[in-house]
Structure formats: C-alpha cells, structure tokens
C-alpha cells in the first residue's frame, strides 16, 4: 500500500511549572492511502497530542516538538512547513474531528454557513455553490432534510447530529486524511455505533485515510485494520486488528483486553485488574513505561528500554519478554 503519512520518532513535550511533561516520547507509525488506523490508549498516553501534532495544532511554547521528529505527508516533512503551507494543508489535505462538537462549533452561525465558509476558504466557488456543497455534505453524513438543516444553528441539533456536522465540515474539500479524536466519547452507545458506522462507510466510500483515536478497544475492532497501542507516550504494540485482538504480545495490550467485560462472555468472567496508575510524564520511569504495573516485570525492564520485536509482517511489540534470555526464563 502506498504510504500517505509517516510519523517517525515523534517527540513532543510541554513545559509547565513543575517541569517538562514528556507527552510523546518517540512515536512511529505509518498510514497508507485510504487506510483506517486506530490509536488506542488511556488518558494521558499521548494519543491526542500525536493527533494534534499531525494537524499542526501544538502551541509552541508551552509545547515543544523535539528535534529529530519527522512527520511525512506524501513525502514532505510537514513539521518544516511555513505558516502559509500549514493553512493550505489543514483542511484541504488533513482534517480533524474533536470529541466535543458543541465547543468546536460556533453557536452564533448557522451550520450551513460554517460548512460553506470552510469550502470557500479552500476552493474558489460562489457562495451559492458553497451552500449547495454544504447541503451535499450534510446528506453524505446522513443528516435528513439538509435543505432545512443548513439554516439551523448548532443548538438545534442533538449531540449525535452535531458530531455529524463536525464530520461534514471536516469532509469539505475532500481531505486525504481524517483524524477523529475520541469522536464518540461524549455520546451514548446507540449514537456511538451510528457515528462509527458512518466513519467506516465514509472511509470506504471516499477512499480516505482515517486515524481514529480512542480509549475503547471495542469500538475499533471492526473499523480499523491497523491498530497502534500507546502507553505513557510510547507505542508499545502495533499490528493489524487481528494481531492485536487475537495474538497480542505486549502484557499491557493483553491486560487491557482482559480488563473489559465482553457482552457475549459467559457468566463469572474474571476481570483482570491492572494494578497501579500510569506513570507521571514529568519523571517517566527508565526502561519500559509499563514496568511499574506489569505482572511479568523483570529487572531489566526497570533499567533498560525494551527493543522492538517484529512477529508477523507489521506486528511489532516493544517488550523484553521476547529476548532470548527471557525465553530461557520461562522454561526454567
């Protein structure tokens, strides 16, 4: 598959009163053209910061993108772009949908106008055509009666419909990459399922790459063909959805899968509780970030950063357990 986006050794820090918060500490992954990728992790694992960096939404200062970080979009390093190039890139090449649609929409403008403005910003069209485009986009995201809806204000839409409007705005100008940052966290389950279905349809219909960022492994099972699991600012495991769900290698991914109850599970399923809390990113542990909570933790995990191991094509895991010495351990 042709690569659309390549994130290479991305490191992002924020400077605060207490010290440097190392939110993202060396993240690498690729997104192919038209591919759906999920970034999964708990709050504070750096998944949102990664997404915002790809969109160029990190304020510097207090943020700092460390030297050596590279994000290639169709081969160009976007971190080296000028402000003017960024403006063109945002929206036309890459769009983002946030968790809180109500905060992201302007309450004083009609929904139609907000979509039309985005269209006119990036393409030279007349106002009437822009509004027509807005209607088309609303139909595309499954909002009934678009001719009437374009004239309405955000507060007249329900939570799920507002999120659809956000997606419509993001889709204006046919971006090649859509980033959805926890798009369903604030929504009820039935509406969440609708939005996830919509994203999946759009990705296939428009051959658009999607990065879905979420804390919920369940919702990505069917949507994303590739999954990146992050913990404490690092990628601990990445692979295809079947790799992650059926053959996960990292103790964190394994524990995470066993920590959520399955609706279709039999009675008395035991939940695995991952003791402790994620490490503080001002003073992250040396060695493996998960070592403080890992049941398999070995001495080396607390002193040296684990290397990457590749299992099948593209299934990569960072863990000392797969070192030859640890293999001997297991048998003994």
């Amino acid at each position, binding site marked *: 598959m042709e690569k659309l986006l390549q994130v290479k050794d991305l490191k992002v820090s924020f400077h605060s*009163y207490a010290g440097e918060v190392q939110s993202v500490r060396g993240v690498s992954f690729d997104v192919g053209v038209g591919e759906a990728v999920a970034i999964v992790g708990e709050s504070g694992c750096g998944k949102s910061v990664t997404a915002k960096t790809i969109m160029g939404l990190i304020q510097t200062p207090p943020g700092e993108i460390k030297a050596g970080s590279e994000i290639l979009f169709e081969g160009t390093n976007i971190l080296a772009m000028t402000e003017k190039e960024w403006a063109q890139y945002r929206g036309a090449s890459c769009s983002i949908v946030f968790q809180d649609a109500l905060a992201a929409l302007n309450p004083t403008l009609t929904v139609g106008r907000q979509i039309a403005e985005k269209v006119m910003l990036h393409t030279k069209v007349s106002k009437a055509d822009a509004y027509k485009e807005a209607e088309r986009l609303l139909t595309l995201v499954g909002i009934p009666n678009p001719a009437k809806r374009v004239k309405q204000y955000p507060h007249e839409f329900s939570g799920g419909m507002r999120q659809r409007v956000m997606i419509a705005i993001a889709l204006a100008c046919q971006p090649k990459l859509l980033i959805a940052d926890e798009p369903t966290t604030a929504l009820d389950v039935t509406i969440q399922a609708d939005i996830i279905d919509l994203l999946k349809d759009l990705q296939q219909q428009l051959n658009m790459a999607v990065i879905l960022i979420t804390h919920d492994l369940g919702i990505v099972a069917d949507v994303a063909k590739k999954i990146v699991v992050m913990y404490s600012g690092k990628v601990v495991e990445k692979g295809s959805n079947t790799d992650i769900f059926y053959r996960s290698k990292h103790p964190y991914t394994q524990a995470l899968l066993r920590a959520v109850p399955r609706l279709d599970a039999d009675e008395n399923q035991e939940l695995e509780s991952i003791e402790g809390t994620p490490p503080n990113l001002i003073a992250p542990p040396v060695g493996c970030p998960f070592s403080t909570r890992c049941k398999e933790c*070995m*001495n080396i995990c607390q002193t040296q950063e684990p290397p990457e191991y*590749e299992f099948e094509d593209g299934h990569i895991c960072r863990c*000392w357990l797969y070192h030859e010495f640890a293999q001997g*351990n297991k048998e003994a």
Partner: protein
Amino acid sequence: MAKLLTPLDKAAIRAEDFAKAVKDENKVEASFERTVFQQLVSSFRQNKLAILCLIVLLTIILSSIFAFLSPYDPDEMDVMNKMAGPSAEHWFGTDELGRDSFTRALYGGRVSLSVGFSAMVVSVIIGTLIGSVSGYVGGKVDAVLMRVVDIFQSVPSLLMIIVFFSFVPSNMVTLIIMLALFSWTGVARIVRAQTLTLKERDFVVAAKVLGVSHAKIIMRHIVPNMATQIIVAASLSVAGAILDESALSFLGYGVALPKSSWGSMLQNAQQYILYDPLLALIPGAFILLTVLCLNILGDVLQHALDPRLHK
C-alpha cells in the same frame, strides 16, 4: 519467532537481568500538584504590581502600629511652628496648630485602619452567616433574607448613618457597627451564590447521606470551600469601609476629637486648602494608596485563587 528490529548492545545485557523483579507495593508516589499557597506565591511572583502593593500596604500598616516610635506627640501643639513646610524635623510639615503632620497621619491611620478592618470582620461574619444559611436552606428563608439584602442595598448608607448618629454618640464601636451593618450585603450575596453551587456538589450530598447535621455541613464543607472568595470580598470590603469612614469623618460624623483619622484630617485641612494644600494631600495620599493597594490585591487574589481564571 520474533525478529529483533532494534540493534542491541549485547554486552550490556546479562541473563540475570531477566529475573522477575521484586516490587515495592507500598510505594507512595510523589505529588506534582500545587497547593493554594504555591499558586499564590507564583502568581505574586509573576505580578510585580502585586508585590509593590503588598509592600506599600504592609509599610502603612506597620508604621501605623509603630507610630509611637515617632519623636512627636500627635496632639502636642507647637504654635510657633504652625503651618511649616517640609523640613528635616517635620518631614511633611506641621498643621495649623503646629502638630507634626506625618505623626498625625500615622496615628490617624491607626483609627482608619482599625475601623476598616474591624468593620470588615463584622460584616464578613454577618454576611457569611446570612449568605450561607440563605443559600443552603433555600425556599422561603432564602426569599426573605434576600429581600432584606435588597432593602439594605437600596438605602443610601451614608445618609442613614448620619441620621443614626444624630441620636447616638459616634465612637469607634458604633462607627464599626454602622459601617458593618451596611456592608455585609455584598459578602452575603457572594456567599449565597457560592453556597448554591457548593450544596449541589457530590461531597455535600455525601455528607448528607452520611447523616452529618446541616450546621456541620455548612461549617465543615461549605464555608471552607469558599474561603478564597470570602478573602477576596474581605479585601475589597476593607477598602470600602476605609473610604466610608473617611467620608463620615470628613462630614464630621467620625470618631470624636481629639482622636483623628485620615478623614477628619482632611476635614481639618479643607479650611486651609489654599494656604497649605499639603495638609490635605497627606491624608488624601494615605487613603488613596491604602484603598488602591487593597483593590489591586483583591483583584490579584481573585485571579490567583480562582481556577477558572487560570491561564
């Protein structure tokens, strides 16, 4: 089997490192949270003006307290030296009876400041009590108490105090009570608004479910959680009380002679304003500086203590 992607330094890896780690389960992590005090210190550090105000205010307060160190008696007349300009002996000159202006201003500050602070304390106590009960109980009690607040806020307070003083002699105690009586309403409103939001918070609900009495809930949960707002209101209230006291003294309804306050010094000075404007300027400057510093500090405190205003 797994393929290694990261180059490893073979020499640094020993087989014994792969033994299972023993973890100290009882480790208590360090905290990176800031306390209110640290927040306060850091916002003062960022704000040079606030530090200046604090210094000025402390200087005025301390020098008023230690006014007895001045070589002059504030009430001792020295007619030979009246209306003198600034000099090495009399830093800010003397008044129409030859009394040292600077010393008088410091002693006046004792009266003005103690009236101001005492009135604030009384009004904060009344305001907190009425505001928290009103907000916590709600319903009819709230409606009645808030109408009382409205009535107090809609009468011209200075006029009422003047009328009152035509029946009752004015001294420090009556003055403080009068000033407090007309200034608790502001505190009460702030406290009531805070109580309304705090009483819906889950920790208050939890206390109710635990069977904690209402009085204890107000004392232990509601009032401590709005201490910051009360402090801000209090700092502004001192400023207001000092201004009101000055105005009353200026109109001749302040503390009785020979005791003087900044207000009564101003009144005294108005007869000589054309001959010696300095007489009016000194107490005026003291009032201005004190009130200005208190207002600025109140503002800084509000920003430092209110998390919603944090950047």
